[in-house]
């Protein structure tokens, strides 16, 4: 059974939501006069997350801790900033991990299987020097482990036995952290249209908005430069251009990547057609047709985006990835981050 102390540690659990419901409280009831500490803690949660990326794990009062969580979520949904939501979800998840890794196997099992409906079994298997406390159902494992990039999370490097992945206690806690993160992102992205926002919450919402600006800066709606900046293009795209330039042939996937990349960074159609001109089998009519298709001006009217890096790796289009590549998952993100660097000088001069 989960105790009230557990719910204070893990206020994102459905059981905690039920607990609040059973108290018969709704957001209108959390007035500053009676529930000052709850509002304070809710604000504090957000402030800690935004400023340090961490939320303290010590619990002063269980009820305050449990009640403050949904309030934080609501405030965040109302301020409506995706960056803030992601940062907050990560901080809450890290807080949960700190607490989860100290739990007994029984408690971990309860949280994983009852709150998150994981297929989880007690394993207690010793292989080599490692003791595996748990085995986790394959899909529960994969859903969370794909976000973790270290080699030890790769399925090829795990022990997989009849649909279950062996995991130590700490690893299980780490995978739960990912589950918590996704859950909170979901929660803070829920529609708030049906919620009546009490007026006393106004100053808190305003304060959190200011905090977001203070710690994360003003949201920059960065616009890509009008003219493509070749220096900002990723190695794969540059390679494709130079292959075409030297009259070498580029296969379908490479051509699609190049065309969709250029369309998406806003290159002029004439310019894109010119890039393909050196190809040995160049046909202006075909190229124009295909570029228009990718740009969504023909056929299904879909504007195609550039394929993901993983796809490009599979098709052998990925070429000499550099340090920037390690931080992105799509060639367009490479360009976005680099174009900013390369054009900053010019902007400052304006």
């Amino acid at each position, binding site marked *: 059974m989960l105790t009230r102390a557990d719910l204070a540690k893990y206020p994102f659990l459905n059981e905690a939501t039920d607990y609040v419901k059973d108290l018969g409280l709704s957001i209108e009831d959390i007035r500053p006069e009676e529930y000052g500490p709850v509002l304070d803690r809710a604000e504090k949660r957000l402030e800690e997350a935004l400023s340090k990326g961490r939320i303290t794990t010590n619990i002063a009062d269980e009820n305050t801790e449990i009640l403050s969580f949904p309030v934080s979520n609501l405030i965040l949904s109302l301020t409506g900033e995706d960056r803030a939501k992601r940062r907050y979800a990560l901080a809450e998840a890290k807080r949960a991990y700190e607490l989860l890794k100290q739990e007994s196997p029984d408690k971990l099992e309860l949280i994983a299987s009852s709150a998150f409906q994981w297929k989880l079994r007690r394993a207690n298997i010793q292989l080599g020097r490692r003791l595996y406390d748990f085995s986790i159902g394959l899909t529960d494992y994969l859903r969370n482990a794909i976000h973790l990039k270290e080699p030890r999370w*790769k399925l*090829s490097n795990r022990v997989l036995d009849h649909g279950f992945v062996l995991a130590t206690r700490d690893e299980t806690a780490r995978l739960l952290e990912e589950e918590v993160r996704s859950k909170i992102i979901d929660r803070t992205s829920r529609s708030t249209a049906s919620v009546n926002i009490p007026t006393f919450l106004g100053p808190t919402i305003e304060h959190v908005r200011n905090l977001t600006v203070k710690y994360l800066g003003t949201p920059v709606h960065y616009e890509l430069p009008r003219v493509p900046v070749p220096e900002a293009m990723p190695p794969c795209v540059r390679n494709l251009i130079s292959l075409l330039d030297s009259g070498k042939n580029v296969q379908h996937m490479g051509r699609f990547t190049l065309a969709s990349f250029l369309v998406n960074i806003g290159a002029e159609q004439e310019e894109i057609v010119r890039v393909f001109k050196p190809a040995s089998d160049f046909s202006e009519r075909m190229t124009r047709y295909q570029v228009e298709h990718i740009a969504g001006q023909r056929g299904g009217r*879909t504007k195609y985006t550039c394929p993901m890096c993983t796809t490009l790796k*599979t098709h*052998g289009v990925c070429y000499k990835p550099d340090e920037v590549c390690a931080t992105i998952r799509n060639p367009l993100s490479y360009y976005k981050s680099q174009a900013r660097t390369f054009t900053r000088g010019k902007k400052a001069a304006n």
Partner: protein
Amino acid sequence: MNPSDEIVKRKFQEYYASPTRKLHKPPKMEQREYGFLMFKEKFMVRHRGFKTAESLLTAARDLAPKHVYYSTAYYQQPTASMEEKGWLGADLVFDIDADHLETPCKTEHDTWKCKACNSTGKGTTPKLCPKCKNDRLDSETWLCEKCLNQAKEETFKLLGILYADFGVNPDHIGIFFSGHRGYHVHVYSEGLRFLGDEERREIADYVLGQQLDFQLQGLAETKTRGVTVIEGPQLGEPGWRGRIVAGVYDLLQENEKSGLTDSLKAWDNKRVLEGGSFWSSAKGVGLSTWKDLAVKAVEKGSARIDSVVTTDIHRLIRLPGTLNGNTGLLAMQVSERGLEDFDPFTDSIAFEGKMRIHVKEAPSLRIKDSVMGPFNNETVEIAEAAALILLCKHRAEPIGLMKS
């Protein structure tokens, strides 16, 4: 349409028009998308939907397509455009094709030709032409018994991994001969239906043993009181751990011990069988030697699937019960018990008559018990199934084409 295509198309049409014909009905067939690749127009007729096997058969008969495909994915509206289909999950599929296998016989029967400089070569088509570095190469592959047997071996290995490691229920698996150079394995388990492409990539990499780190699988050197000890997985352990040991064990058991160091040649399995540690059963063998063997063990133990097919959650794949336009053979389901004895050249024959054709050049081939060829610029009357293979592979031309 060229005369070969014309006659193949007519044979296909006859096949689908036969009154006893039945098509394979994939699970939830009404939620799937169907596609046809035609003989004449070189594009795909896709985004089609069918509720019954009968209506699908009618379409096959009317269109007489070269290839028939269906989606591994389930959709709310299979006939809508891609972004409006409403994805409802997809079967987990594996494709094993001789194109991805390194069989020694390939140099005997597969050739390639560079479209740019006309150089030619034998064996697997290289990525780039070795002469002019162009990447547009035509390949001519052959339907070879050895390659098909190797593909069957890989299929068995894949099934072994799916059962032991992934715990897949055998009742949720369909095994299919593709009608050309390989096999498809479909997993219908509901629990795996909603996996995304990244999750499926992990599964494909696992089956291929890709990016496998031996240290993370337990193989490591440790020093205790100045003595170096090699620790590693043990026989019988689950997953890749056990498979690595078993593979290395087999390598050491094999009679062919060339390339092994002296201490490994002298290896005696007694100590292991008596429960001793595997990795200390050969004196003076270091970690790097064991790792080299482990690499080979992973190569042998993995199943050579085409990971592009497994990771694509919107894939169109050949519909069993239809004819493969590369061969005229039937793509068909094979039971797991029947797989060992399954003979594509007997069991997936769709045509029984005889046909006169002119063969340019082709290796020998077998239909049921009769072997014919090799052929070299000759006119022959042979089993229709063989004639269709040769026509489909552009190794022959029809003679006395009937007027349609």
